[in-house]
């Protein structure tokens, strides 16, 4: 397929950046290049093309909030003391003065009340952490819904999933560090989670806490994990994630001139660098505004951790809310056999389910490519409607997640909506099984309906909203053909074929043996593709156009009249004004 380069105003093969007389910058560049040889690399990448779409910037929110986390986190470490040694608080927050607490809590209070900007940085750090994980999730959803995870990007999907997992762990360890009542309650629950593990549970707990809960080791240990171990891995994985992004080049939406072979967008320098750099400041700024204006984790109200105290509304941060919700709706099942205890009521929701969900997440690209048998590279994105089953799978997973999330906040929902926690719990116990199924069915049908709508639009034109009365007195709505660019965009997708077992032959034409899972794979492939609307063929389009020509003849007298419908596609203006932009 040839790319029409005549309309490409600027290509990367521009004039080489060799000024006649090197200026100061040139001297520096020369110095660096002679030692590092960056020239070749930079030449390739400085004008690297990135396509422009708002949904491509969601991952950037995660990247920039991670930078905010690094900066604010370093600030916090300058005052925070990761120690569980007991001290009597003598800082300036009156209601806790004289109370025994850990040095960790005392230093957190000092940061909040005696260091100027300390509370701001604490709050920024916490908000940025929430934004970090939330943006990773919406980025993941975008990648999944548009099919950007397909070959060759499966490994980047895996890295991204690991980032989400590590980000969550990083968040949980950070949540625990102030050693206030809420975080201590969280650690205590985590101790209970560990103890539910068969065989190794109590050992895990004693090793982690350096003895019996609460011990005096957990805060320093979590601190090391929080500021060194996980951030280190996160940094490395983020670097790998970005390198792969650059290597694969970004995916793009199909459209005129945008094909599987090229990538159309703005060059890295200057536009994309400016937009990305500007967005960094915006993410930083939003974090600062939230940190300054919205109170988060007011540890002074919780007071220091005390294993005998608890507060209503004891919840983890939102990203741990869904397993916490599962814990809440799980019936109290526990087995006693051969002299041991197995706490299904804790083990399943908090140890098994997160692991299972994460495994499912990790496997999604591989499951799909196995079902479809599609092993080709894909650089063009799909609209969610054009992969109805895939979209429905994620919506079902989201429904599950959402219901578990609601269960995790059931007490707050109960008081705010005047409901009963018992009723909410009973409802979600049923809904968590039924809801995802319903969501799957509805989403899938919905997507297929939207596909049909697209097909109609392509074949019969779009609805103008103009009702015509024929000479005989009949009424009909005027349809006008969509413009060429949109028509091309609607057709620029691949034809899908259901994979059927038994039609494979090996290199010699001998039918291959049916694999054990072939039947299942065939069924899944049917579910995946059989009901989808396939892109319009040339013949269908010609037939439709033929029909439309006939219509147009009938309507010819309307053309050029004030309300012929063309004011909506910009062919002419109404009262000299474009009702629809011309781009």
């Amino acid at each position: 397929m040839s790319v029409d380069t005549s309309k490409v105003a600027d290509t990367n093969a521009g004039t080489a950046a060799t000024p006649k007389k090197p200026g100061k910058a040139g001297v520096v560049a020369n110095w660096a290049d002679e030692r590092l040889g960056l020239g070749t690399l930079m030449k390739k990448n400085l004008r690297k093309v990135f396509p422009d779409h708002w949904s491509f910037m969601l991952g950037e929110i995660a990247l920039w909030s991670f930078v905010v986390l690094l900066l604010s986190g370093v600030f916090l470490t300058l005052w925070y003391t990761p120690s569980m040694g007991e001290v009597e608080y003598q800082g300036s927050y009156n209601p806790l003065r004289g109370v025994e607490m850990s040095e960790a809590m005392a230093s957190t209070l000092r940061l909040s009340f005696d260091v100027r900007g300390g509370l701001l940085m604490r709050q920024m750090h916490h908000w940025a952490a929430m934004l970090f994980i939330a943006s990773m999730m919406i980025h993941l959803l975008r990648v999944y819904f548009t099919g950007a995870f397909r070959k060759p990007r499966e490994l980047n999907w895996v890295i991204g999933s690991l980032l989400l997992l590590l980000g969550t762990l990083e968040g949980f360890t950070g949540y625990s560090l102030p050693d206030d009542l809420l975080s201590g309650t969280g650690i205590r629950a985590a101790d209970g989670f560990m103890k539910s593990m068969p065989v190794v549970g109590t050992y895990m707990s004693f090793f982690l806490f350096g003895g019996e809960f609460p011990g005096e080791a957990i805060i320093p240990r979590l601190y090391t994990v929080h500021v060194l171990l996980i951030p280190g891995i996160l940094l490395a994985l983020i670097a790998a994630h970005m390198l792969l992004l650059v290597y694969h080049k970004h995916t793009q939406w199909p459209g005129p001139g945008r094909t599987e072979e090229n990538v159309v967008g703005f060059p890295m320098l200057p536009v994309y660098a400016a937009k990305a750099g500007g967005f960094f400041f915006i993410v930083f700024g939003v974090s600062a505004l939230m940190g300054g204006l919205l109170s988060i984790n007011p540890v002074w109200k919780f007071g220091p951790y005390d294993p005998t105290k608890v507060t209503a509304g004891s919840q983890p941060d939102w990203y741990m809310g869904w397993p916490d919700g599962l814990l809440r709706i799980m019936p109290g099942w526990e087995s006693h056999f051969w002299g041991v205890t197995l706490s299904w009521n804790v083990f399943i929701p908090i140890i098994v389910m997160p692991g299972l969900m994460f495994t499912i997440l990790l496997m999604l690209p591989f499951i799909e490519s196995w079902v479809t048998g599609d092993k080709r590279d894909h650089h063009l994105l799909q609209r969610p409607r054009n992969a109805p089953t895939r979209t429905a799978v994620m919506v079902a997973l989201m429904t599950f997640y959402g219901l578990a999330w609601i269960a995790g906040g059931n007490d707050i929902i109960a008081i705010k909506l005047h409901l009963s926690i018992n009723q909410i719990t009973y409802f979600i116990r049923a809904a968590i099984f039924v809801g995802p199924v319903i969501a799957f069915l509805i989403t899938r049908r919905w997507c297929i309906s939207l596909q049909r709508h697209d097909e109609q639009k392509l074949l019969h034109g779009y609805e103008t909203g103009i009702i015509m009365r024929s000479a005989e007195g009949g009424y009909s709505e005027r349809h006008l053909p969509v413009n060429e660019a949109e028509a091309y965009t609607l057709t620029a997708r691949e034809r899908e074929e259901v994979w059927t077992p038994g039609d494979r032959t090996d290199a010699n034409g001998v039918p291959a043996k049916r694999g054990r899972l072939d039947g299942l794979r065939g069924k899944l492939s049917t579910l995946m593709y059989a009901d989808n609307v396939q892109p319009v063929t040339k013949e269908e389009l010609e037939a439709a156009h033929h029909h439309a020509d006939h219509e147009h003849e009938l309507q010819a007298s309307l053309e050029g009249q004030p309300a012929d419908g063309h004011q909506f596609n910009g062919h002419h203006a109404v009262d000299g004004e474009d009702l629809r932009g011309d781009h």
Partner: protein
Amino acid sequence: MRLLNRTAGRISRHRRGRLAGVVMLMVGLVLTGGLYTVFAPAQADSSESDAALVAEGRELFLVSCSFCHGKNGEGVLTEGGTQYGPSLAGVGAASADFQLGTGRMPLTRPGQQVAVKPVVFDDDEIEALSAYVASLGPGPAVPDEKDYSLEGLSAAEREEAVTRGSQIFLTNCTACHNFSGNGGAMPRGGAAPNILGTTPEHIYEAMLTGPGNMDTFSNGNLSPEEKRDVIAYVSQLREQPEYGGFGLGGLGPVSEGMFAWLVGIGGLVGFAVWIAAHTTRSTKQPSKGADA
């Protein structure tokens, strides 16, 4: 300065604003002596006026309360045998003062949670009704202002009281009423109410009498000084500034998570849409050289 305000604030339930506290303190100091002499003689015939008060209370009671609580406050049982309105013998004036003074009684509809409504009776009527309820059996009396006021303590003692109160509050109260006094959920649709807007007197009465499903904290359980300290801490919670900005309802991580998604992610996605959106286009061409 703030400490002074806080203390002064406890003089009156009807405290309005910070300056009002100072003014009230001044007014109080000037008038205390004088007023005492004026009202002291009234104490002499207290028994007589008490009887009149009880009688007045009984009248009100028969009209407004007896339908559920019985003509003599003995309680009414439904046909099923469950309590319609409980017996009021022994609940004490404190209980009546709390239930009426916070607008919980008279009840419009029985249920798991007694709703707080605008107060129906005026102060005198509440006093009369409380006196009548108190006459039904011995129970906790309406606390005196000095029971819950830090009046007469030195600054250091006050600070100590608030600190002790914070620990007692976090041990006994936060489990239901939440760390900032905003309330929390209870089984089967019940709820522990927000206590930040409750007057010290009513908080004291609630601890004494255990309204609704609340446990009681009798003087044998939590000493009067400890109750006073708890109230001092609640006042502190109410009056101290929100150091970190808007409190988001003081409900903990659930509301924080909601704000992270709606404000944070919502705002940033909005910015992303703006950044990637195409700018307006012109139908003109640049003149030669303008866009070299």
